[in-house]
C-alpha cells in the first residue's frame, strides 16, 4: 500500500484555533439559550418566514459546500479519472464537517425538537413529503461520509495492527460505500430544490420553476468542484505547501462545462416561461438575479479558458465566484425571492447569526485538527 497522503503535524492549538474556539463558545451559549427559551427568543422567524438563516445557510449552503466529496467521487470513481484521486481525501473531510453540522443544525431549527426522533420511526413517517426524503437522505449520507473518512483515520494509526485490519476490510466494501455516497447526494440535493416547488406563487418566477431540482443538483456539483479548488489553494497558502495547480486547474475546466450547461438551461427556462422581463424591473429580485448570474458568468469565463485558469490568481477568483454564485442562488430561491404576503418580513437576528458563525468556526476547527493529525492532504513529492 503506497500512501499518497500525509499528515501535516505541528501544533493543533494555535492563535487562529483559539479565536475559532471563542466563536464556538459564543455559539454554544446561544444554542443553550435557544433550547431553554425557544426559537422566538433567539430568531426573527415567523409563520410567514418559518425558514431563515439556519436553513438557508447551515443546511442549503452548508451541504452544497460539503459537496466536494460528492463531486470528486463522481469524477474519480464514475468517470474513471484517477489522476484526481489525491484530492479526494481532503474533499471528503470538508464534506464530513459540512454535512454533519448541517444535520445537527436541523435540530436547532425544529421547534419541537423532542419529537424529532419520530423521523427515524418508519410507521410515523409521511413518505409523500419532500422534507422527509431530504432529512433521511442527509442523515444516511452523514453516516456514509464518516465511513468514507474512516480509512484516513485508521491510516493515521497504521502501527496498530487492528487498525490496519479494519482498514483493509473497509476497503473491500469501498464500491458499495462510494456508490451510496454518490446516490444519496444526487437524491437530496435535487430534493432541496423540490422543497420550494410547494411555495408556488410565493416564490418569484425568476426562481420558481419545475426545473428547481435540476438547478439545485447542478449548482451543488459545481459548488463541490469549486470548494475543492478553493480549499486546496487556501490550505497550500496556510500550511506553506506547494500549490496543486495543474491538477486543480483541470478540475476547473470540468466545472466550467457544467456551469455552461447550467446557464444555458437557466436562461432557456426563463425564456420559455416568458419571465425574462422580470430581470429588468430594477427591484431587489432583479438585482439579486443579475448578481447571482454575473457570479456564474465570471466563474464560467475564467474557468473555460486555459489561459486564465492556469494562473493561480484567476483560479482562486473563479472558484470564489462560483461559491458566491451557488450560495446566492440558494439564498435567492429560499429567502430573497420568497414573499409570503403582505405584513411579513425577515432579517436574521444577531443571535441567529452568531449561532451560524459558531457552526462555521466548529467546521474550520475540525478541518484544522484532522489535516494536522491524519493523512488527509496529498503527499508532497520531493524531487
Amino acid at each position: 500500500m503506497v500512501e499518497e497522503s500525509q499528515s501535516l503535524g505541528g501544533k493543533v492549538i494555535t492563535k487562529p484555533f483559539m479565536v475559532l474556539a471563542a466563536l464556538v463558545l459564543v455559539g454554544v451559549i446561544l444554542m443553550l439559550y435557544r433550547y431553554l427559551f425557544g426559537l422566538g427568543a433567539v430568531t426573527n422567524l415567523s409563520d410567514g418566514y418559518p425558514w431563515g438563516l439556519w436553513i438557508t445557510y447551515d443546511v442549503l449552503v452548508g451541504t452544497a459546500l460539503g459537496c466536494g466529496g460528492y463531486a470528486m467521487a463522481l469524477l474519480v470513481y464514475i468517470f474513471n479519472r484517477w489522476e484526481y484521486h489525491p484530492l479526494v481525501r481532503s474533499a471528503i473531510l470538508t464534506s464530513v464537517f459540512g454535512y454533519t453540522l448541517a444535520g445537527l443544525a436541523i435540530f436547532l431549527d425544529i421547534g419541537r425538537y423532542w419529537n424529532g426522533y419520530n423521523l427515524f420511526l418508519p410507521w410515523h413517517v409521511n413518505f409523500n413529503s419532500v422534507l422527509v426524503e431530504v432529512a433521511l437522505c442527509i442523515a444516511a449520507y452523514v453516516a456514509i461520509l464518516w465511513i468514507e473518512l474512516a480509512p484516513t483515520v485508521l491510516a493515521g494509526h497504521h502501527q496498530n495492527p487492528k487498525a490496519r485490519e479494519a482498514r483493509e476490510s473497509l476497503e473491500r466494501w469501498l464500491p458499495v460505500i462510494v456508490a451510496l455516497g454518490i446516490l444519496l447526494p444526487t437524491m437530496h440535493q435535487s430534493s432541496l430544490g423540490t422543497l420550494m416547488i410547494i411555495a408556488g406563487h410565493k416564490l418569484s418566477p425568476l426562481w420558481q420553476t419545475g426545473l428547481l431540482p435540476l438547478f439545485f443538483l447542478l449548482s451543488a456539483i459545481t459548488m463541490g468542484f469549486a470548494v475543492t479548488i478553493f480549499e486546496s489553494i487556501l490550505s497550500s497558502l496556510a500550511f506553506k505547501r506547494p500549490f496543486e495547480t495543474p491538477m486543480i486547474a483541470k478540475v476547473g475546466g470540468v466545472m466550467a462545462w457544467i456551469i455552461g450547461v447550467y446557464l444555458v438551461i437557466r436562461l432557456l427556462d426563463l425564456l420559455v416561461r416568458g419571465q425574462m422581463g422580470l430581470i429588468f424591473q430594477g427591484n431587489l429580485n432583479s438585482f439579486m438575479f443579475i448578481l447571482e448570474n454575473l457570479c456564474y458568468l465570471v466563474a464560467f469565463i475564467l474557468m473555460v479558458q486555459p489561459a486564465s485558469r492556469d494562473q493561480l490568481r484567476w483560479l482562486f477568483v473563479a472558484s470564489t465566484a462560483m461559491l458566491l454564485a451557488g450560495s446566492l442562488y440558494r439564498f435567492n430561491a429560499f429567502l430573497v425571492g420568497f414573499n409570503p404576503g403582505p405584513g411579513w418580513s425577515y432579517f436574521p437576528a444577531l443571535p441567529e447569526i452568531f449561532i451560524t458563525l459558531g457552526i462555521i468556526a466548529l467546521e474550520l476547527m475540525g478541518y484544522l485538527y484532522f489535516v494536522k493529525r491524519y493523512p488527509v492532504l496529498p503527499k508532497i513529492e520531493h524531487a
Partner: protein
Amino acid sequence: MAQGSYPACCEFCPNGGSIFGDVQHLLEEAKRRLALEPGKMAAYPLHRVDSREMRHRIVTPYQKHLFGEKDGGGSQVLILAGVPCDKLGLPILPDESTAATSETIMHSLYKGMIAPYVVLGALFYIVYKNTTKQDLP
C-alpha cells in the same frame, strides 16, 4: 366550532355577504348566485348557508369566476366578487395545488424506491469496474 359557533365575520354580517357552511353547500349557493339574473329580486341567506333568515334584494352582477372552486387545487373559502379577484389582492393560482405538483415529482422519482435501487446498482457496477481495474493506493 364544537359548540355550534362559527366565525364572527359571518355571525355579524347583516347582508349575507359572508356566510358559513359546508363546502358543498357553499358551492351550490355560489352557483345559484352566479345564475341569478342581475336587476331582479332574489333571496340571500344570512349568516349561514342553511339559514332560514333571508334578505331580499336586487341582484347585482358578479364576475363569472368562483375563486377557490379550482384555484390552487380548490380551497375551503369561496369568493364571489363584482370585480376581478386579482384586483382584490388575491393571488392568481393554477388549478393544480403546488403540494400536488411536488407530490407528483416525489412519486414519479421514488415510486417503490425502484429508480433509486436501479441507479444504485448501476453506480455500484461502474465503481466496482473502475476500482478493480486500478492499482489502488
